């Protein structure tokens, strides 16, 4: 999925100066883009705009060359996975297992194939043995891994990870780095992070800096 931002401007309130101001960027459909920027520089805001949770005040967002204005957040999210800075808000179901399956159950698309894929994801993200646990009762790192597994269950083509290492220990961080490097061979990943270890370990990345509402290539 190719994401193109053109002249993107956004402010939360009319009276306040805009958080993003005439921002231009292209995020390729393959490879890693690392987005840095001070606290409050608008990284999370940018992710919300790409997913359609927030609407831009001016400018446009194109997904694979198509204007995204008419695409609902749900339609965009089927192709772009967005891991929240706070994954608590992304977990709903009473058990880990159901957390992965409920969107498919609701849309009546839970096939045997899907079930097998979900099992695999549980194993891949180190959640085996926790299938019947309550998601919000998991540790911070486990919640983040579960949220990530939930995103991947839909077969997304692009991932936006907002501070993905904030709750991870060294071992889980290594696993995540491995996963990102691997996933980015065929898909695009936008990582928003201040984590130096993560930044150093990501392969073939573009580094971007958000400052004063604009993006700079570092």
């Amino acid at each position, binding site marked *: 999925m190719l994401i193109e931002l053109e002249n993107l401007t956004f402010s939360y309130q009319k009276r306040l100066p805009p958080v993003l101001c005439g921002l231009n960027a292209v995020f390729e459909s393959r490879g890693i883009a690392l987005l840095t920027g001070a606290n409050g520089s608008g990284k999370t805001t940018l992710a919300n705009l790409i997913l359609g949770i927030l609407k831009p005040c001016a400018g446009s967002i194109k997904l694979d060359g198509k204007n995204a204005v008419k695409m609902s957040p749900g339609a965009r999210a089927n192709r772009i996975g967005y891991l929240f800075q706070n994954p*608590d808000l992304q977990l*709903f179901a*009473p058990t880990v297992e159901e957390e992965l399956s409920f969107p498919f159950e*609701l849309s009546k698309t839970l096939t045997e194939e899907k079930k097998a894929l979900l099992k695999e994801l549980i194993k891949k993200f180190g959640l085996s043995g926790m299938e019947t646990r309550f998601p*919000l009762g998991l540790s911070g790192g486990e919640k983040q891994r579960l949220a990530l597994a939930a995103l991947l269950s839909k077969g997304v083509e692009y991932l936006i990870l907002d501070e993905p290492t904030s709750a991870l220990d060294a071992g889980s961080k290594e696993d995540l780095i491995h996963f990102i490097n691997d996933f980015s061979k065929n898909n695009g990943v936008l990582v928003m992070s201040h984590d130096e270890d993560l930044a150093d370990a990501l392969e073939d990345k573009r580094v971007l800096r958000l400052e004063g509402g604009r993006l700079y290539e570092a």
Partner: protein
Amino acid sequence: MKLDPRSRLLLIVLLTTLAVLSEDVGNLMIVAGAAIGAGILCRISFLDAAKRLKHFLSLILFIAVVQSLTVKGGDILVHIGKVQLLTSRGIGFALEFVLRMSVILMAGLIASTAEGSEMTDGLLKLRMPYELAFMSAIALRYLPVFRDEFANRIKAIALRGIDIKKLSLWTKLKLYGYLITPAILGAMQKSEELARALNARGFRAFKKRTMLRELKLSYKDWIVMITALVFTAVFLIRMYTCGALLVL
């Protein structure tokens, strides 16, 4: 100058009492007028409030329309053949409902003008135990937090690729289960954290508390309170003598 929280509390109590006790449209109109006056005194921006409450207002209007169409009696105003569509009693019912809800909403708006610990201070001065006053203030303070969190959760569920508008009623109900369970559990977690944070900061470590701002009633507060009390008394007595006060 802003009114003292105690004057505002009094206005809230009196307005809601009158809204509940008044029975006919005429009386409710007078109370609604008084509520608008109170709103102006408390510097409520009506336009902002209407914007914030637009969903709630449309719900009230919807209920009023249903009521006016379903309650029958009195003179028939609109009819198709033998089917009565609109009757005077139906319209009266709907009007009463709208007026009563508007007054109660206004009281809620006045309550929401409180900043920080204002209402706690006001309640304390009225000799409410500190723990109770503090709890009610916290409850008020957290309402918008929960509203925002709920809105965020709806967005987050849309991001799971679920188009809420396209679901059948039954699946929608199931979906609300997914929204409400974590919201309640999250609230419980939050309250536990809050309790721990309070203890860590020495809540109730000393018997006597001091206050940063001492509240003082100004002459304006006295005028407002006395006027409000006199108005309420006259209003209730008048209703009582007319036999309109049904509860007594």
